[in-house]
Structure formats: structure tokens, C-alpha cells
């Protein structure tokens, strides 16, 4: 297994993407066959499966619950207007087509007909307007509100059309209206103060599966939604997500046929399954990144030359081998899953390959002929960071940088991050496959962005603004290429690698394609044999 399982499919979808781009301009005819991944012509209906789940969602509310564990499962029950295809294309999901106005300041979405909610009611434009209005109002406490801050108003001229009016053009709007936060739910549902808890008992989305039972700390059961709008889908009758205590139990469960599918958080954990009969292990490219973040206000690394020196002393491959046993892909400035669509080749980016002489020179020029002391932060519970921290402190020692490792509780770490006081730290985060959604919030200066690293770079701001406003794909690509070169040059972050997503399944489960986010989209098109 040297190549990704997805490579062939990715190539296919990229080719299709080339035809479909700009996705926005042409109304797609019928239903996109690549929604939720490729379709298997041999697929048959029926069957139940058990999926081992290593992280449990605390609650099911897609509007107010940010936990990734919630997103993983809720994408099967709730839908946004678009599907975030891994290749960076927003495929129309509940929308049928998307048309931006000439000035880019409004988008008109035609809605799919014949869509029903799990409640039985038909979906109309009023529901769409209601749902997105709820989400973008910060007082409602949705973590997705920030992404919709450019929306000025939403209008529903007829039952099957909604128009989003924007304060400024945003070509990433379709990708924003995907499935991470929020969803289209029946109008009025969220008015009830008890609506959040209600969603732990019933699902009110439009997705292929509906909630049958949610027992926190234990199981989530979803059943096939008979009135689902994609003809023939989904194939599975029922999915049980079982909370797994640890990855060893997951491996045992797969071997003994108790579990049909497991997504592993650490690639090494699948080693025990390499020769297990009846179990397949797959590697998939990821949209997540393991990175080193550099707070540009943190005294030792305030000088850009010091940051560049650090970048030049780090051997990313060695760090990856040490921390995830090599099960991943070294990256430059783009997560592995989006590399082919949006990345800049590593040899065109500055400071990607170790050069100790140059690094020492930069440190001297910055006034540190004898090196310097620095504190490197790791987060408790993220195992890969421990090995990475030791490896990096060894690497930095070679240019006279003395590292002391500080371990923080996740809660404290998040508080520091939100206070924009992150220092020199490891980070582990994911994205929806669009460069604007990947970069804007993290790197645009305040107040438009969050600028966690206090980079505050005017050129970066200009590029991020233009990238968001430009509709033409080729131009966008050029803008983000320029941005990435700047990012590599200025080093507010050192993206180290993307760890592969590893899945293992019983062979009776067919056509499960793992999405790069780690979410369970693939179950909409998976089926069981016999």
C-alpha cells in the first residue's frame, strides 16, 4: 500500500471538476453522481453495520455543537446547500445550482425539489432562509456564525429560490454553506429553547439517515430515511455507532466481527490488523494538518529571521517518521487532501529544506550569535506531539536553539489560542476543502480574521481579501499560490505533515470511501454483501 486508495478516484473527480468549474456558473443537470463520493454499480440495498467510534459526540446539535465528533456523524442526518468534495469543489446538495451576480455581491441558489425533512414536511426556501439566518446571528451562539459574517441578508423570492446578499463578494460562499456547522431544518424548529436537546432524540434534517437512538457514552443508531431524495440511496438499513474505549478494543472488535468499520486516530494503531483475515486496511489523504505555530508577538520569534532559521533547521520527514511512524505526507503550505488542487510544489516554496549554515547565519543576523532559548508547547492527550517535540528540540539544538518543552491541558491551550497568546506551539487542525476557509480566519488580521498568530501582515490581508472576492478559478489559484509563497517566506506557521486517515473494515462492507475531513460521508454510499 504505497499509494493512496483514493488516487484513481481523485484523478477522476479532478477531471470532472475541470469540466464542472466554475461550479457556480452552470446549473448542474440532475443529481451529481459524485455527491458523497463515487457510486458502486454493484451496490445492493439492505443490511446493518456497526461502526466503532473512538471519539463520542457529546450532543447532536449541528448549530451549537462544535465538536468534530459531532460533525462526523451528524453529516449523515443533516445537510447544507452544498457538499464539500475533497477536490475542493462545492457540489450542489440541497441547492440545485448556484449563480453569482455580476458584481459578486449576491448569490442566487435554485433549490432541489422533492426534498423532505425527517419530519415528513417538504423543504422550501423559507426553511433555508430561516436556518441560515439563525446560524449567522451571533446571539444564537453558533460557531459557524463567523463564516457567514459577510452575509448581509437572505431573501426567499419563491418556494424554490433563495438569494444571499453579501456585504462584499465571497467566492467561497458555496463551500461555506456545506455541512460542518448548521444545516437546513424546518422553519421555526429552533425557536423552541429546548431545540438543542430535542436533536438528541430526533433528527430533523434532510440527510440519508435519521436518528433512531442516541445514548451518550454508548451508542448512536441511525436508520435509513425512506423518503430520502437521492434515488436508491442510502443502501444500508441501519448503522450503529458504538463508543470504543480505545484502539486496541477497536482492533479486537474488527477481528472478532463485532465491528464492521473503524476510523483510527493514530495510523500506527492499525499495524495489528495487517494480516487479519477478513479485514481490509485503507489509507486516505487527509485535510488535517499537524503544524508548528509561531506567535509573531512571542519575544524570541518576533524577528522574522529567527522564524526562518527555525524553519530551516527542521526536517519535516524526520518529525513525521518519529511521531506517526511515517503514515502521512510531508506538506509545505497546503494540507495533503487539497495539495493537487491548490498546493504549490515544495521546491517553489522558501525554507522547506534543512540548511543549517543558512539558519545559523540568519540567527547571527538577528542578533543571536550564541543561539537562543525557546519554549515549545505541546497539548496533553495529543500523543504525536511528544515524539515530535523531542525530535524538533534535537533538530533545533544543531543551530544553537535550546528548547524547553511545556505541556498544556487542552482547555488552557484553547484559552491561550483564543487570547492570541499561543507562543511557539504544536497545533492539530482540519479544514473544509477551500483555501479561503483554510486560511482566512487563521491568517487575516483582526477584526475580519482571528489572526491567532499575530501575523498582522497587510500583503497577506490583501491576498486573502482578493482570493475571497475573485470568482475565476484560475485567478484564485494564482492568488492563493502567491499567498502560500508569502506564508512560507514569513513563517507564522510551519505546516509539518498531514497524517493519513486510516480505516479498517470487514470485507463484507463495500465501497466505503473515507473523506479527508474524517467525517462519515462515505456511509451514504457504502453497502454490505450477502
Amino acid at each position, binding site marked *: 500500500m504505497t499509494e493512496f486508495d483514493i488516487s484513481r478516484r481523485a484523478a477522476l473527480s479532478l477531471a470532472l471538476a475541470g469540466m464542472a468549474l466554475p461550479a457556480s456558473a452552470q446549473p448542474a443537470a440532475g443529481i451529481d453522481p459524485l455527491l458523497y463520493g463515487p457510486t458502486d454499480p454493484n451496490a445492493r440495498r439492505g443490511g446493518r453495520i456497526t461502526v466503532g467510534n473512538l471519539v463520542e459526540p457529546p450532543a447532536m446539535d449541528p448549530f451549537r455543537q462544535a465538536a468534530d465528533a459531532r460533525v462526523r456523524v451528524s453529516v449523515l442526518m443533516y445537510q447544507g446547500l452544498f457538499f464539500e468534495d475533497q477536490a475542493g469543489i462545492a457540489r450542489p446538495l440541497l441547492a440545485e445550482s448556484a449563480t453569482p451576480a455580476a458584481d459578486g455581491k449576491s448569490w442566487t441558489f435554485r433549490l432541489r425539489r422533492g426534498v423532505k425533512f425527517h419530519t415528513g414536511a417538504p423543504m422550501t426556501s423559507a426553511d433555508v432562509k430561516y436556518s441560515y439566518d439563525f446560524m449567522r446571528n451571533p446571539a444564537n451562539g453558533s460557531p459557524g456564525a463567523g463564516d457567514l459574517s459577510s452575509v448581509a441578508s437572505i431573501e426567499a423570492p419563491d418556494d424554490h429560490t433563495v438569494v444571499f446578499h453579501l456585504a462584499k463578494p465571497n467566492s467561497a460562499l458555496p463551500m461555506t454553506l456545506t455541512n460542518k456547522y448548521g444545516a437546513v431544518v424546518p422553519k421555526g424548529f429552533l425557536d423552541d429553547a429546548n431545540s438543542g436537546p430535542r436533536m438528541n432524540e430526533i433528527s430533523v434534517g434532510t440527510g440519508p439517515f435519521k436518528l433512531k437512538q442516541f445514548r*451518550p457514552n454508548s451508542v448512536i443508531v441511525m436508520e435509513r430515511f425512506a423518503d430520502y431524495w437521492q434515488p436508491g440511496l442510502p443502501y444500508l438499513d441501519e448503522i450503529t455507532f458504538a*463508543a470504543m474505549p480505545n484502539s486496541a478494543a477497536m482492533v479486537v472488535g474488527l477481528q472478532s466481527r463485532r465491528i464492521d468499520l473503524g476510523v483510527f486516530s493514530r495510523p500506527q494503531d492499525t499495524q495489528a490488523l495487517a494480516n487479519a483475515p477478513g479485514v481490509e486496511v485503507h489509507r486516505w489523504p487527509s485535510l488535517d494538518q499537524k503544524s508548528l505555530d509561531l506567535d509573531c508577538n512571542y519575544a524570541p520569534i518576533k524577528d522574522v529571521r529567527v522564524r526562518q532559521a527555525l524553519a530551516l533547521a527542521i526536517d519535516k520527514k524526520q518529525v513525521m517518521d518519529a511521531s506517526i511512524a511515517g503514515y502521512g505526507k510531508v506538506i509545505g503550505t497546503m494540507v495533503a487532501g487539497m495539495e493537487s488542487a491548490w498546493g504549490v510544489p515544495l521546491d517553489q516554496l522558501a525554507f522547506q529544506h534543512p540548511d543549517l549554515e543558512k539558519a545559523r547565519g540568519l540567527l547571527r543576523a538577528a542578533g543571536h550569535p550564541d543561539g537562543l532559548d525557546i519554549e515549545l508547547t505541546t497539548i496533553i492527550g495529543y500523543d504525536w506531539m511528544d515524539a515530535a517535540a523531542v525530535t524538533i528540540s534535537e533538530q533545533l539544538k544543531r543551530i544553537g536553539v535550546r528548547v524547553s518543552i511545556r505541556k498544556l491541558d487542552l482547555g488552557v491551550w484553547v484559552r491561550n489560542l483564543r487570547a492570541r497568546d499561543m507562543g511557539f506551539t504544536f497545533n492539530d487542525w482540519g479544514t473544509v476543502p477551500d483555501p479561503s476557509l483554510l486560511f482566512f480566519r487563521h491568517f487575516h488580521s483582526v477584526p475580519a480574521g482571528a489572526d491567532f498568530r499575530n501575523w498582522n501582515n497587510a500583503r497577506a490581508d490583501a491576498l486573502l481579501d482578493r482570493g475571497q472576492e475573485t470568482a475565476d478559478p484560475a485567478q484564485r489559484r494564482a492568488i492563493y499560490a502567491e499567498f502560500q509563497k508569502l506564508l512560507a517566506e514569513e513563517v507564522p506557521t510551519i505546516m509539518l505533515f498531514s497524517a493519513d486517515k486510516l480505516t479498517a473494515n470487514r470485507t463484507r462492507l463495500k465501497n466505503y470511501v473515507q473523506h479527508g475531513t474524517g467525517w462519515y460521508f462515505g456511509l451514504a454510499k457504502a453497502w454490505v454483501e450477502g
Partner: protein
Amino acid sequence: MPGDIVGQMLGQTGTDRAAEQALRGFFGLDRPLWRQFGDWVGATLTGDLGRSWYQGRAVWTMVWEAFLVTAEVAGATLALATLVGVPLGVVAGIVHGSRLDAAIQGFNLIGLSAPVFWLGLMLLVGASAVLDWSPPFAWSGPTEDLGDNLSILVLPVLSLALLQTAAYSQFVRGLMVEELGRDYIRAARAKGMTPFDIHFRHALANVMVPLVTFMGLVLIQILGGVVIIESLFSLPGLGRLILSGIQGRDYPVVQGALFFVVLIATTVNLVVDLLYGLLDPRLKP
């Protein structure tokens, strides 16, 4: 205290103060700490444990559901430990000083020394390697699917029961040895009573009283052990509820569950005291 629920909910999604404030207000975290606690005590006194911050469900319901799981595990463990541990202890007591006694004592010491979670882990791996078997990890209650329910309980109960069996056996052995050395037993023996009568009519009868007290202790011990074993085997009981509540900073749930645990422990102690009075003739009025 490191972090709160709002930080965990918002994560890296931005620094939008409005959303943060809205959420803080929603959870009542904007009030001073003493008022938060005061309100909780006040509500608890009226029988209202509040609602989970994450799930919005009434804490009473969650605690009760979790308790049923814990009660099943604890009950099965207690039953198994009593049924195996007491006879073992009685036998060891009767034959004390013999090889069999030494073997039973060896078993007791190992049982008391082995970490419960370690044992559970070894059992899980062992069952998979030797029997190609594992418990179904998705929980089902005894009324939903009894077969699955029992399969899930086997390993946790075994790993918990070893410790308690050893504790029982050790305790009962000590009592028996002491009781059999007493004057009245010697007198009975001299009078030519059968060993059966000596051991079971007299010695065992007198051992019953301390045994009941001990059972209360064991039950409270099991309640503690369940916390670890529940997270090792993903059982949705009280221990998991407390642990996940602490990790997610869902304080109404943590407070409610702890309140309930204390309630159980106090009840057990009370019942033991009452039984003690009933069983021990000397304490009768």
C-alpha cells in the same frame, strides 16, 4: 481550573466575543462562582439536579439510566464474588494451615494486588487471542437484548470480581479461623458434635454478622472499581458519566452524579447498620 465548556465548544473557530458571551450567559457562567454553587445547592434541595449543559437532558434521568447500568455490573460482581469468595474462605478457614489453605491464600493475595484495569485489558486481549471472541461494544440493556447484554458484562464483571472474591475469601477465612479457635467450639468438639454441625451450624452462623458489614464495604469498593472498568469497556454507567462530565466540564452532570453516588454509599451504610442490629442478637432490645 483549566478551561470551561465554552472554550471547548468554540475551539479554534475564532475569537468572536459575541458568540462566546452568548454561550457563557446561556450556561450561567457569567455569574460569580459562589452564586453558581449556591443556586445548585438550592435547586438540589428541591430535588432538581438541573440539566446537562451538552445534552440538555435532565440530570436525574441521565443519572438514573447510568445507575441502572452500574447497578447491573455491581450486582453481578457482588453475587459472583459472594458465591465464590465465601465458600473459598470457609474452606480455607476449616483446613487452615494445610496446602490447600496456602494455595487459597496465594490466590487471595494475587487477586488483591492485581490492578483491576490491567486485568480487564489482559482479559480482553486474552479472549480475543485464545477464543477469537470479543464483547459487542454497542451497549444494550437486559431488556433490549439479553444475550448481548450478558456478553458485554462477562469481562468487566470477571475483572472486578477477582479482587472482591479475594477480599471476601481472605476476610471469611480470618473470621473462620478465629471462630473455630473459640472455647465453645472446642467444647462442642469435645462433646462429639459432627464437624458439619460445628462448621456450619455454629461457626458460620456467628460469621454472618461481620459478613454483612463486610458486604457493604465490598459494595462500596465495587462502586469505585466500576468507574475504571466502565471506561475500559465503554459501559454507559455512573463512572463514565462522571468521567466524561469532568472531561467536558459539564458540571451539572458531575455534581448530580456525585450526589447520587454519595446517596448510594450512605444508603448502603445505613442498611448495613440496620441489618447489623437485626442479625446480632446482642444488639436486640
